[in-house]
């Protein structure tokens, strides 16, 4: 570790998290602390388990061992109602948006407000229009189907859906994947604005180094199922760790050996 982590009670605390799929040990004892109100970016190569880590915290995948605490409550041992209450405070932006095809944009954004906050349909629609405005979309977009939107607009709608219920924790899975650099920067800017405005704690996973430095206060590098480096985002390109250096500079030669089929 290049810098000592901040002290205090973490908002998210992961200890010894392990998950295997068959013989492949994807997570091999992850330890990670995310302090309240900060943004943590997890970087790492394809298939190193970044998405699995987030899905374990969200409860979409059952880990084999370890603990996941939110505000000091271990989600893996707590009762269902406590677990659900803790997870209802999490907003998630999926890599491809994961907007519901069968609903309009407005219904997508209002969905969480109705399901999580038990808001009435009309009030939820009004709030959805407000949130669409916050991500730079006109209220008229709310009447469209997700399939009628461009990739960048779909990402904005997905972001609006994630922040609509004012979650105290936000996860972002590859927020700039598939977007051109300008749209990527726009989405990153929106993410930073939203996280600051809500005072949320954020965890993002990405391959995009520019995005990592824009979004993150701190960065953690996941390699071979473990966090091998963690430090301030400003030190990412100057980590003095050979694995991190190779990854962040995109060098072919180095300790990370790509598995290529010939």
């Amino acid at each position, binding site marked *: 570790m290049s810098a000592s982590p901040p002290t205090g009670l973490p908002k998210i605390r992961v200890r010894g998290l392990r998950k295997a799929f068959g013989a492949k040990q994807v997570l091999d004892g992850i330890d990670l602390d995310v302090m309240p109100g900060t943004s943590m970016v997890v970087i790492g190569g394809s298939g190193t388990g970044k998405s699995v880590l987030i*899905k374990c915290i*969200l*409860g*979409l995948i059952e880990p084999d061992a370890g603990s996941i605490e939110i505000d000091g409550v271990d989600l893996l041992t707590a009762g269902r109602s406590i677990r*659900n209450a803790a*997870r*209802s405070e*999490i*907003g*998630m932006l*999926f*890599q*491809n948006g*994961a*907007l*519901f*095809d069968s609903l309009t944009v407005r219904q997508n954004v209002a*969905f*969480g407000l109705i*399901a*999580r906050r038990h808001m009435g349909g009309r009030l939820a629609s009004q709030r959805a229009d407000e949130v669409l405005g916050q991500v730079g979309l006109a209220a008229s977009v709310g009447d469209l189907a997700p399939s009628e939107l461009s990739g960048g607009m779909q990402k904005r709608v997905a972001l609006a*859906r994630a922040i609509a219920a004012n979650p105290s924790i936000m996860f972002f899975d590859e927020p700039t994947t598939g977007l051109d650099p300008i749209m990527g920067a726009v989405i990153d800017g929106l993410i930073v604005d939203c996280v600051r405005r809500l005072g949320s704690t954020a965890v993002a996973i990405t391959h995009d180094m520019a995005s990592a430095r824009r979004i993150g206060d701190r960065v953690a590098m996941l390699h071979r199922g473990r966090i091998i480096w963690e430090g301030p985002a400003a030190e990412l390109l100057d980590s003095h760790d050979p694995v991190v250096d190779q990854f962040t500079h995109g060098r072919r030669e180095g300790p990370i050996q790509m598995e290529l089929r010939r």
Partner: protein
Amino acid sequence: MNSILRAVAAIGRSAISVLRVAGDLAIFAVTGVINILLPPYYPRLVLRALFTMGFLSLPVVALTAIFAGMVIALQSYTGFARFSAQSATASIVVLSVTRELGPVLAGLMMSGRAGAAMAAELGTMRVTDQIDALTTLNTNPMKYLVAPRLLAGVIAMPLLVIVADILGVLGGFIVATVKLGFVPASYIHNTFIMLTTEDVVSGLAKAAVFGFVIALSGCYHGYRSRGGAEGVGSATTSAVVMASVLILALDYGMTEIFFSR
């Protein structure tokens, strides 16, 4: 020796795989039924599934039933003519349609149409993370996606089979009166004289079970689909194959229960 061991191992792996799917399917079915019974309920989603499964399947089920009735009339007439028993044609048509052909043919058509559509829709939702997104928005996907479809299947199929029964008998009536020279009033009399409540009810009971099986198979394979477009395609195929085989197997089982006394 090694090749024998490999063959035995392959058989064992297949058997374990079949048992694993059967167990998983049973758990999925029980979870689905529990989610139908427990709140919250989504009546609007049930109505939408009813419209898709029931109303939109009407044309294909209607056409199948009419032609099946016509064929049965023609076949039974030519067959029974050998024993000078052509007058049994009306009875054969109505019993075949209400007991067997109505529910089985409607079931097979529904599995190809609605079951495949369900598997494709849920499969696409699975591979595009929409099902995970539901979970992160505090919505149980089994309750929101699966339970309404299972309930709609159980309700829609008997309604479709009532239509199929009527149109199947009508098809037989048309062939019998127009082509085979039956007197309409006499044909209708012979149709109703043999028909009992049990014949119709057994067909409708089969239809309800087949409706559940079609929705279960479509939802199960879609929900469990993996691996992008190819995974969705194979989920759709598996849903139709599983539902079709189960319909024919359960048809025999239920016929045994209803009529072998």
